[in-house]
Structures are given as structure tokens and as C-alpha cells.
């Protein structure tokens, strides 16, 4: 018997288990998946939880329910990967593998910035990238009476790069509905040169911040959070005051990657951009947020990666050359508030442009333009996630590689 070992039962690991089990003979291949937690979270829901759009129950389920029969599920912490010996150490046992799939994702590291995880953490300094943060923020917003709300992004790369902007848009919508928008001074702070950094997006979406009366602070490289003065300070000495800070801390790969000496500065693993094979060990593959590839860290990206990676693992088993197929395809809905959303569809080479999706002319979804239909698409994504995406079911009409059909490319 041979062993495939999958590390992490989040979006990517769960998808890989579902893809691979039916394709590999049970008397030849064992498949084992390891995760430390019992709960599988629908992370995109963490954007909606603070605004009472989703409830707790809608964003979490028991992870094991999504692991297919015939896959061995171990709920333990992974201590160390030893790729030179084809071994992985868990808290109290060591597993051997023939093929390793690393899907340990990324998470916030607020301790990277001085004072961020200080005495006011989850009091008036919040993240919404964790279940705990998102829930604490919801409770705060329910009773908050207004003041300076600063939505802040520490540094790139982060998972779901548009989420902070979506948060600002939804906050505008939320306070408007509550009849207290005039009591909230809303500022978006980014280390980049703008809220939009790509040419076509800036052109098409530049109006959004002004329309929603959201102030913009660019090129802000945070050095510290001052918990007494309630302000964030950047390396150039610039200060921004807040009453309520909602920040996206530095995102990093799990510490297990650092302990195993397999990652870069941010614990992301060097990965072939098109095959998803490790650049250092040929029987190791990486998928989802754990890679260092220059694609967005998003569930939709992991979904497209999973299709290519499944084919490549079968090719690898047969001793055939891998497909250099993955193109960085991402397909993301962006909430703009007031029941509207945008849709972007892009890859390594093609920046988001206007057009219709998935079909030319008829759409029905519009690219890089606000529409109510796109908003329904975003809400439908939760159902698709639990019922199709995790199970590895292909989403109709959306191919793993980006299509140029319907896109206005000049």
C-alpha cells in the first residue's frame, strides 16, 4: 500500500481528498488528511458576520462531514514536516508518505506589528479574519455609537485581497441603514499607492470611495499601534487616529512551515506557478494559501488549482510529465454595499477588465461593474462552497483556466 498524506482540512485539503479518493484504487492507495481543529469555517462569511448579515451557524460546520468515506481523518496538530525522510510528525505519532499535499493555509500574525495585539485587542482594535475576531467585532458594532472608524491593511500579500475594501463598503451601508452614517468618520488606510492599483480597476471603480464618503490614506507602512493615544503610526512618522480600528494584520503561513524550514520570510512555500509541485521536493505538492505563487489567496483560486493538481498527482503516479496548466485564475465577487457587488475574473497575466460573465453579451453577471445580480452571486457562493466547492464538484460554465470570452480586452 502507498500513502497520500494531506496536511490541512480547510478549503484546499478537503477538496483534494474529495477529488482524489474516487480516482485512486482503495487497495493501492491510502489517503490520510490531518487538521488540528474539529470545525471547518466558511471564511468568506467572516466579512458578513460583523454586520449581522450572517449568523454564527452559517459560517461553521463539523469538518469531518466533508471528508469522503475511505479517507482516514486525523484531528491532531502537525508538528514538523521532514521532506528528506518522507515523514510528518504529529503531536504523538509519525506518519510516512509517498506523496505529500500541503494545504495548511495562511493566518493572521498581529504580533508582527508592535502594539497591535496589545491591551485593546478585540476591545477597540479588531481583526475580522478569524472567527473570534469577526464575532467580537459584531458585538462591538451592535453597540458602537460612532466616531472614527479606520479600516486598515498592514501589508501584502493577504488572503482575499479585496476583503478590507469590501469591509469599508459594507460598513458604509451598515451605518446608513442604522441611520447613523453621519456619526461615523470612515477612513481606509493602505500600504499600497491607492485603494485600486490596477489601471482598469482604478478607471472603473475610482468613484466608489468618493460616492460612499470614505477617506483614503495611501502608502501607509505601519510601524506600531499606540493603544494609549488610539492611533496607528507609520515608519515615516505619520499618525492616524481612530476610535475603532479594524485591521488586517500581516498574513503568514503556519508556524509548522517555519519549523520544517520549508518557507520564505512569511512561511509561504516556494511552489511551481503552473504545476503546483514543490520547487525542492518532487513528491511534495502545495495548494491554496500555503503556496508562494503570485495568485490571489482565495477559495476560488484553490478550487481551480485543485483541478490541475488532481491531474498532476495522477500523472506523477504514472511517472508522466506534469501539466504546466494552472494560470493563476481567480474569480471573486466584491461586495460594494447597498445590496450590490462587483465580479472580477482574472489570472497571472490578465488584469480584471469590464465585460460579461460567464457568457459574452448575455452574462448574466457583469465584470468590474456594480450590479444586484453580482450580489446574489456572492450570497450564493456560500451554498456553492458547502455543497459543491468542498466536494470537488465542477462549477457549471466556469473552467479552471481563465476564459477571455465576454471580456473587453484591448
Amino acid at each position, binding site marked *: 500500500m502507498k500513502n497520500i498524506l494531506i496536511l490541512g482540512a480547510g478549503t484546499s485539503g478537503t477538496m483534494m481528498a474529495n477529488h482524489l479518493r474516487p480516482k485512486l484504487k482503495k487497495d493501492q492507495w491510502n489517503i490520510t488528511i490531518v487538521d488540528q481543529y474539529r470545525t471547518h469555517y466558511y471564511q468568506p462569511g467572516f466579512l458578513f458576520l460583523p454586520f449581522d448579515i450572517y449568523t454564527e451557524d452559517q459560517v461553521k460546520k463539523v469538518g469531518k462531514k466533508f471528508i469522503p468515506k475511505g479517507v482516514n481523518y486525523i484531528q491532531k496538530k502537525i508538528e514538523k514536516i521532514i521532506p528528506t525522510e518522507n515523514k510528518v510528525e504529529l503531536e504523538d505519532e509519525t506518519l510516512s508518505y509517498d506523496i505529500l499535499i500541503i494545504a495548511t493555509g495562511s493566518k493572521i500574525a498581529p504580533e*508582527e506589528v508592535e502594539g497591535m495585539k496589545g491591551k485593546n485587542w478585540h476591545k477597540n482594535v479588531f481583526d475580522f479574519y478569524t472567527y473570534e475576531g469577526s464575532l467580537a467585532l459584531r458585538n462591538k458594532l451592535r453597540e458602537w455609537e460612532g466616531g472614527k472608524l479606520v479600516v486598515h491593511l*498592514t*501589508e*501584502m*500579500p493577504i488572503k482575499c*485581497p*479585496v476583503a478590507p475594501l469590501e469591509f469599508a463598503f459594507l460598513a458604509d451601508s451598515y451605518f446608513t441603514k442604522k441611520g447613523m452614517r453621519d456619526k461615523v468618520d470612515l477612513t481606509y488606510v493602505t*500600504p*499600497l*499607492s491607492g485603494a*485600486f*492599483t*490596477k*489601471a482598469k*480597476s482604478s478607471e472603473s*471603480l475610482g468613484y466608489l470611495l468618493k460616492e460612499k464618503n470614505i477617506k483614503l490614506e*495611501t*502608502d501607509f*507602512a505601519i*510601524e506600531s499601534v499606540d493603544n494609549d493615544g488610539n492611533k496607528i503610526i507609520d*515608519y*515615516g512618522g505619520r499618525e492616524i487616529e481612530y476610535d475603532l480600528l479594524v485591521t488586517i494584520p*500581516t498574513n503568514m503561513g503556519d508556524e509548522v512551515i517555519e519549523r520544517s524550514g520549508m518557507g*520564505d*520570510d*512569511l512561511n509561504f512555500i516556494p511552489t511551481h506557478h503552473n504545476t503546483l509541485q514543490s520547487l525542492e521536493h518532487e513528491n511534495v505538492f502545495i495548494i491554496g494559501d500555503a503556496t*508562494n505563487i*503570485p495568485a*490571489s489567496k482565495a477559495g476560488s483560486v484553490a478550487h481551480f488549482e485543485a483541478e490541475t493538481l488532481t491531474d498532476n498527482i495522477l500523472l506523477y503516479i504514472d511517472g508522466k510529465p506534469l501539466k504546466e496548466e494552472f494560470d493563476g485564475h*481567480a474569480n*471573486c465577487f*466584491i461586495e460594494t454595499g447597498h445590496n450590490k457587488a462587483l465580479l*472580477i475574473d*482574472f489570472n497571472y497575466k490578465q488584469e*480584471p477588465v469590464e465585460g460579461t460573465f460567464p457568457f459574452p453579451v448575455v452574462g448574466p453577471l457583469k465584470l468590474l461593474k456594480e450590479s444586484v445580480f453580482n450580489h446574489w452571486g456572492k450570497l450564493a457562493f456560500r451554498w456553492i462552497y458547502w455543497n459543491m466547492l468542498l466536494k470537488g464538484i465542477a462549477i457549471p460554465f466556469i473552467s479552471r483556466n481563465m476564459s477571455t470570452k465576454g471580456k473587453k480586452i484591448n
Partner: protein
Amino acid sequence: MEAVLAGIKVMVTDDGYLTDFSQWNEDIAREIAKNEGIEMTDRHWEVIKWIQEQVKAGNPLSVRGIKKSGVLDIKEFYALFPGGPLKLSTKIAGVPKPKSCI
């Protein structure tokens, strides 16, 4: 679009970043710097080289990442490229400015 820098025709984005690194040379870098009010010194060149190496290796650039570079600390980075050090240094280095997906 097309621009002329140090007497050479090059392709740049709307905000003046080279789109093709093979067109970059030190004279062009000096001119971009001058237009941003920066006089290049040995320290500037060291930073530019480091940035080019990072981009070539596919490593994401961030101001905080500079701390780990061993080349310089962040205060000096700000002093060399006042205002938006990452935005300015990438422009001079002829590499794309750090971007998000939109």
C-alpha cells in the same frame, strides 16, 4: 504608453513605471529619480539592486520586509526615498509597483 527617458524611448504605465525591465539601465533610473526629486547615491543603488533581486526571485515586497533585508533599516529607507519609499524605489528600479488584484 511611450516615454523618453535619458534619451531612450521606453514603454511605461500611466503612472510612469517601466513595463519591460529589459529596457532599464542606470541612466534611466537616474532620470526617474531626478523627476521624483531624488539624487542617487551609493546607498540608493544598493537598495535598487536588492529590490531587483527580490522581484527576480518572485518575493513580495513590503516596507516591513526591508527590515529583514540586512541592506538597510526602515528609517533609512524613508530617508532615501521620502514619502512613499516602496512606490518610489520600485519605480526607479524599473520593476512593477506593489499591487493588489484590483
